[in-house]
Structure formats: C-alpha cells, structure tokens
C-alpha cells in the first residue's frame, strides 16, 4: 500500500472511523435462503378447495423459522453501506440523511387506506396530498402539481406526455423532436424515446453550459421540448436560462425542468420563474425520503396553468366541503395504477412541513457550501465552475472506477464515476447539506489517499469490504439470475 498516511493523531481518528464501517471481510458469506432450506409442498386435490386443473402441482421454497429469518436479514443488512453508515456523496442522487420521524408518520394506521375508498371517508389523506401539491407548486414556482408519478423517470414521462398532448391540442402534433444536452441524465433520453420522440443531442460550450449557437441550430418547428437540468450535471447554473427559455418558446416548444438538482436552489430560485413550463421533483432526493436500496421514490410533476388541463387523472382539489378527486379536462390519463407512492409522498410532506421556509433555505445554503468546501480540500482537478451543490472532479491519469473502489476501503461511499463524460475520468461528488466539517474532512482525506495510491493498489481495491472486486464481465457473460440457475450448474 502506498498511502501517504497523514499525521498520527488524525490517522488514528480516521482508522477508528473506518473500522466503524464494519466492512472488514471475514471470509464468510451469509448463505442463500435456499441453501438453508428447501421445502416442497404438493397441492393435493383432496385438501384443496379448487380442482386440480385450476391449480399448480407443487411449490418449493425455503421454510425457515422467524429467528432464523431475523438473523438472515440482520446479517445481510450488515453487508450494506447506507447513509446511516457514513457519508454517501453520490453525485446527482442527493443522498441526504433521512429523518427518522418520517418513518413514524408513514406507519400511522390511519393513513393505511385503500384507493377504492370513497373520498368522503379519507379526507385526511386527501388533505395531506392537497397540501403537498401546494408546497411543491410554491417551491417550484409552478401553478399545478400531480403527485402520481412513482419516480423521477416516471415524472419525466408525464412531462413528455403532457407536452405531446399540449401540442396535439394546438394542432401541432408534427413536433417530433426533444432536445437534450449531452451531459443530461440517461433517463431524459430514454424517456423521450419512450414517448416516441427523436432525440436531438446538444453539445456543451467550453464553459460546460448550453451552447446557445448549437441550441439555435437545433431549435425548429419540429421541437416539442428542451429538457434541462439546472444547475446542470456539472453543478453549474445555466446563466442564460432566461434567453434559453425565450428561444425555446419562440419556436413554440416547451421547456422541461429535470428536478434532480433542485436541492441547490431551494428557496433561492424557482424553475417557474426561470421560464420552465413543466418540471418534475425527485422527492427522494430533494425532500429526504429514503432511497431504499434503489426505490421507491416519487416524481411529482408541476406545470404552468396552460398545461394543467393535461395532467394525469385524478388530482386532488379543495371542494366546498373538504377535498375531492377530479379528472383534469384533457387529461393524459394514468401513468400508475392508482396515485403513486403514498408512503414516499407522506414522508416528503413531513420533511417540508418540518423544515419550513427557513429550513429549506438553510438546506440549499449548506449543500452548496459543503460541495465547495470539499472540492477545496481534494487533490483532483475540478475543471468546471462555479459549481453549486455538486462538483465533477477529474481523476486525471487514474481510472475513476478504481478510485471509487479504493475509497470504499476508507469507509466512505465514493462519488458517481465516469459521468458526465465531458470530464475525463469523472468523479461526480455531492456531499449534501447534512455532513459536518469533520465528515467532509474525512471524505477529503479518502479522496487524497486514493489520489496518492499507486496503480497496483487501485486495481486491487477494495480490500476491506465484504466482497473483493467483483467481476462484472463474468456476471453478464454467464447470467445466473436466480437460485434455480445456480442449482443447474
């Protein structure tokens, strides 16, 4: 190992911290449930309420006791790194601390209602949803909000479908192009394609922002929408946003805001005021609902008045005597079987209600301060600025993926790697507002120790995690996707 260990005092603190992460490998893996037990149940006609031609013959699954399962899932959890384990500066994912009390409000039995209930009997649920619609509209500077999309990408899809319905309504169904900056989230491209649009990819200018000349060239009567993230994926504010909005509107297109980076702007700038017509919110990012190992999230969508009639059905509104559900006049219909991820939405409501104006302003201030401080403490070059809540450093001659693996050894979660591609060997880093200066210093030291590591150390990392470097190629070449596939080997 070739780490330049810093002075003794600090490295002792750091080592103690790293050990807390408990990812020291022990050479032992938790067996699969199926390796602990497989019980086959046969379904006999004589004790089945259904005749044999309507049933399966057998079912073979693990049959374990509650204490065995409690240990299984506890042991598995010990092989997972979460925000409660340590810092998680995964760029573009806004991995902020998830306040515990939001779990308690989501667990209230009075909120566990069926979507088939008559609205008069679930006034409390509808009131909370209505108030959340209002909070989000305020925060985004939008006029109307739907809470139905179950994730950010689903929110993007609503945006694209709303844009489509709007253009069709205006007899402009010929618009078949969606313009997206090259550095945008992959979901933007995939969503536009899912909606049947041709994607026009937009290069960045030398400063890492939208190239106005390229935009001018890309815009036409075919343009349905421009999808934009602001601050963009480099953390830079699109300073020309007002002009960009005018250009898009001049050709009759709509301006879509990808809310992934809204955390940078809370209380300081609103997409609606910048000229955006439609936006999604990633409540699992900006509003601190837990990411749950990949989901569930929620991706509410806000629009300006002109687009409100096209929003998904149903929405909640205030009625004379409480709250009611209604279908917008020219609704695009449903994008989810019911009304999205209630258990996520209520946590987002709780977070916003707790923070209020003051807390939201404080969140964006600290998020931007933390990113700038961390960037100032690392050795890697950060080619683009001034950045806000996140920065993209370059690992230079090193492989960014190796750097990430090396950082795992220091008990921290690494940044997002190799993206956006505009920065070579990108390390996209978003510490969020929740980290203290001490934690940021630990993170910075992990960055510095990785940058000082030699090639061999980088390539063989990680060494202190539950598993060593995992072979991705073999997993893809020989897909084994269930325990049945392992038995066949």
């Amino acid at each position, binding site marked *: 190992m070739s780490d330049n260990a810093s002075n003794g005092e600090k490295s002792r603190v750091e080592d103690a911290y790293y050990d807390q992460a408990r990812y020291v490998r022990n050479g032992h893996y938790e067996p699969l449930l199926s390796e602990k037990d497989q019980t086959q149940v046969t379904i006999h006609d004589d004790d089945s*309420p259904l005749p044999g031609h*309507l049933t399966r013959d057998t*079912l073979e699954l693990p049959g374990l006791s509650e204490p065995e399962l409690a240990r299984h899932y506890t042991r598995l959890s010990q092989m997972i790194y979460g925000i409660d384990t340590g810092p998680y500066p995964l760029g573009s994912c806004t991995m902020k601390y998830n306040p515990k009390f939001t779990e308690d409000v989501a667990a209230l039995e009075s909120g*566990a209602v*069926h979507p088939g209930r008559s609205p008069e009997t679930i006034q409390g649920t509808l009131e909370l949803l209505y108030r959340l619609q209002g909070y989000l509209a305020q925060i985004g500077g939008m006029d109307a909000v739907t809470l139905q999309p179950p994730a950010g990408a689903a929110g993007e899809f609503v945006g694209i479908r709303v844009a489509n319905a709007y253009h069709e309504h205006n007899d402009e169904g010929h618009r078949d192009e969606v313009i997206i900056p090259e550095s945008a989230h992959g979901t933007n491209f995939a969503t536009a394609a899912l909606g049947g649009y041709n994607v026009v990819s937009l290069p960045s200018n030398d400063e890492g922002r939208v190239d106005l000349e390229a935009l001018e060239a890309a815009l036409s009567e075919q343009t349905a929408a421009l999808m934009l993230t602001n601050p963009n994926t480099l953390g830079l504010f699109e300073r020309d946003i007002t002009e960009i909005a005018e250009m898009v509107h001049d050709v009759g297109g709509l301006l879509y805001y990808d809310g992934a980076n809204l955390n940078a702007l809370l209380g300081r700038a609103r997409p609606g005021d910048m000229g955006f017509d439609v936006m999604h919110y990633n409540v699992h990012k900006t509003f601190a609902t837990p990411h749950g190992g990949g989901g569930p999230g929620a991706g509410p969508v806000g629009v300006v008045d002109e687009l409100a009639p096209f929003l998904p059905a149903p929405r909640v509104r205030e009625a004379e005597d409480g709250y009611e559900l209604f279908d917008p006049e020219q609704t695009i219909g449903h994008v989810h079987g019911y009304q999205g991820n209630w258990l996520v939405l209520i946590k987002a409501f709780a977070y916003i209600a707790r923070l209020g104006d003051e807390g939201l302003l404080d969140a964006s201030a600290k998020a931007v301060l933390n990113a700038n401080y961390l960037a100032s403490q690392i050795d890697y070059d950060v080619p683009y600025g001034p950045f806000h809540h996140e920065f993209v450093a370059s690992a230079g001659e090193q492989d960014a993926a190796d750097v990430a693996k090396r950082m795992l050894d220091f008990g921290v979660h690494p940044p997002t790697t190799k993206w956006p591609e505009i920065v070579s060997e990108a390390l996209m880093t978003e510490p969020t507002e929740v980290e203290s200066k001490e934690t940021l210093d630990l993170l910075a030291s992990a960055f510095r120790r990785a940058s000082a590591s030699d090639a061999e150390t980088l390539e063989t990392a990680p060494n202190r995690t539950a598993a060593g*470097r*995992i072979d991705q190629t073999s997993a893809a070449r020989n897909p084994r996707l269930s325990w049945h596939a392992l038995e066949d080997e």
Partner: protein
Amino acid sequence: MLEAIGADSVDDLFDIPEGVWFDDEFGIPARSERETRALIRKTLEKNDTLVELLGRGHYGYYVPSLVDHLADRSEYLTSYTQYQPETSQGFLQALFEYQSLLVELTGLEIANCSMYDAATALGEAATLAERVRETSGHRVLVPDTILEGRRSTLENYVSGTDLEVETYPTWEGTVDLVDLERQIDEDVVMLYAENPTVSGAIEPNLSEVGSLASSSDALFVLGSDPIALSLLQRPVDVGADVVVGDASVLGLPTSYGMGLGLFATRESYLRQVPGRLVGVSEDDQDRRAFTLTLQTREQHIRRERATSNICTNQAWVALRTAMHAAMLGPDGLVDLAKRDVVRAESLAERLDELDGITAPVDDRRHFREFVAQVEDSARAIARALEERGYAVHVLDDDHIQCCISGVTEAEIDGFVAAIGEVAR
C-alpha cells in the same frame, strides 16, 4: 469553511443571475418534530376508520412484524442502487432471493428486481412485445374488464409506438374463447389476461388462451400476484411469456395504491428485459458475489436505446415482499391462497342467502373477491355500510364487489350482519 473556499459569504457561492433570484417566501412555517408529527396524525385522524372489503387490484394483507422491524433497519432504508456491489452485498442478495421467489412462482426463468406497479409492468410488457416480435404488428388485446388505471397506463406506455390497445369480451367474468379466437390474428403483438381477474374470477381456460396467443405469434402476458400464484396454475404451464402484477400483496399493508411491479419472463428475452437484474459473479478471490448485471440494457448506459426509462424502482418493497414470503414459507403461502378461495366463496354464499343480494354474479370459482348484485341502489347500500363501519366497491347501480384479503373472520361476520340490515 468559507475561508478555505476563498469566499466572503455563502450567498457569493450562488451563481444565479439577478433576474431569476427568488426574493419572496413560500410561507411554510418551520415546525418542531413533535409539532409535525402531531399535524400529520391529527390530519390523518380525519379519515374514517372502516373495515375495508376492498380489492380490485390493491390488496391489504396482514404483514408480520418481522417485515417492519427488519426492513426498517437503516442499512436497507438509507442505501441507494447497488452501483458499488462490494459494499451492497446484503441488498443484492435479498433482491436475488426476491427474483428467485418469482422464478419459482411463475416457472419462467427470469424476474427483474422490480417495476413500479402492476400497471407500469403491463406497459413495459407491451413495449417488450413490440421489441421482440419478429414480424411487425399493431394490436394489443386486453380484457374488457381491465381496470381503467391499468388500461390508461398501458396506453401511455405504447403512445410512442405503433401499437393500439383494444379490448376483447369476457363471458361470466373470464375470457370468452369464441370471441377471442374471432378477434385474434397475426397483427396481434400481445394478448393480456388476468388470473384471477379483477373481479376475483379464476380463469378456467388459461391453457387455451395461451394456445390462441401462440398460434398468432402474440406474446402471452399474464397478470397475477405472488399469493394467487402460490395456488393457481403455474404461468409457464399455460404458455405465459411474461407475468406482470402487483407483488406487494406480500410485504406492504394497504398503502393507498402504492405497489410493486412484478415482471418475469422467458430467458430468450433476457437482453430486452426492462429494469434492474441482480446476478451472481465472483470476487477477486473467486468467492460468490452478487452484482447488478446486464446494465447495458439500461438508461444510464444505453440512453435513448435503453429497454426502459426506469431508474429508481421499488427495491425496498421487493425486499419486504421477499421477507413476507420467507416468513410464510411454501406451506404458509399455499394455505393463505387456499384461505382466499374458501373465505371469498363462503362470504359469497352467505350474502347469496340474504334477501336482495345475489352472489357471485358469475359462474366461476373465486379468489379473495367477487361481484354481488343488489336489488336496491348499490350506492345507497355502500353509504349505509360506511355508516356501519364497512367499505365495499360500488361498480354501478346494481353491483358491489367484496374482498376478504385483509379482514378477519369476526369482521366478516360483522359485515354479513350489517349488509343484511341495509340490503333488503
């Protein structure tokens, strides 16, 4: 910190042009944790407490305490997608076990580690059908009983393709084979059926439906769920190519429609599958390890050529589903499914004995729910039931639907007594 950065104030760090600064206030007051909890508790207390005999695609079942306590461990809750598998082995293994559960239940070789819900999984199945069909076609057939939320979501998902969604008729609550045979042709890309149906009917002719689909080279997509699949015919045995549905019948209590999209399919469609897949690999010391795999299908790599736009999924719900299934074990799952048949049919019989009610309305076997015909106004009956503490579905003026998934036997007795008072 500002000194290290070389800035005078935090405001200086924001590179936002004058014209777009937000100088106003949202007007949201800050609250203490205690106040926030009280606000939400008091608001939700405005919901009436009703015994819900509600189903139609969203089902409440009792979820064992183990699921809440273990799934709420913060390692599970506060981690994100397993982009760094070396520190995510536990979650990857749990998702691998979830995939294996679905493989066993469906008999198909591949299950992804979640879509959002049953409706979006159905939409993804249609775009899969379009991608894998060798000859082009334009029609997607769905039963006329399909839930509006599912049909509408499906239509949105195929809006970017040349596919058109059409309904085929049902008879006695299940597929009308004669009419379906007349309607199906080579232009049909996908045929969707449900077992049980949205009104709880068990489909008696699934193999024949599967044969009709394969005879016209259409993808046979079957809608179901893990509890029903524990007892009913195995999808692979009736020719299903894709199984979709709501897997959160296990693991999630009633959650105002929040779900977990089940998606399983044949190995031959592996490279066209939407969503994340967990696979087995080895680490640098040749020990078994889990990792997300075949990611070149996904949006963060393949962008506009990805198999789906999904990124954030329902992983934590999948974890809960796997935990609940493990708690029940195969015996418990089969017993629960049998209970769903016995209790639904026994409730239907008891209602049928009452004046003013005929139940069930179709000549089929039933799983956890059924439709009943009422002589008085269905809406008036439902309202009167609400006053007595029970919720049922109103389908139209003459029909209600009742589901037993989440209620106890004592609650069923109470319901029978209540509806006996209001239906005559």
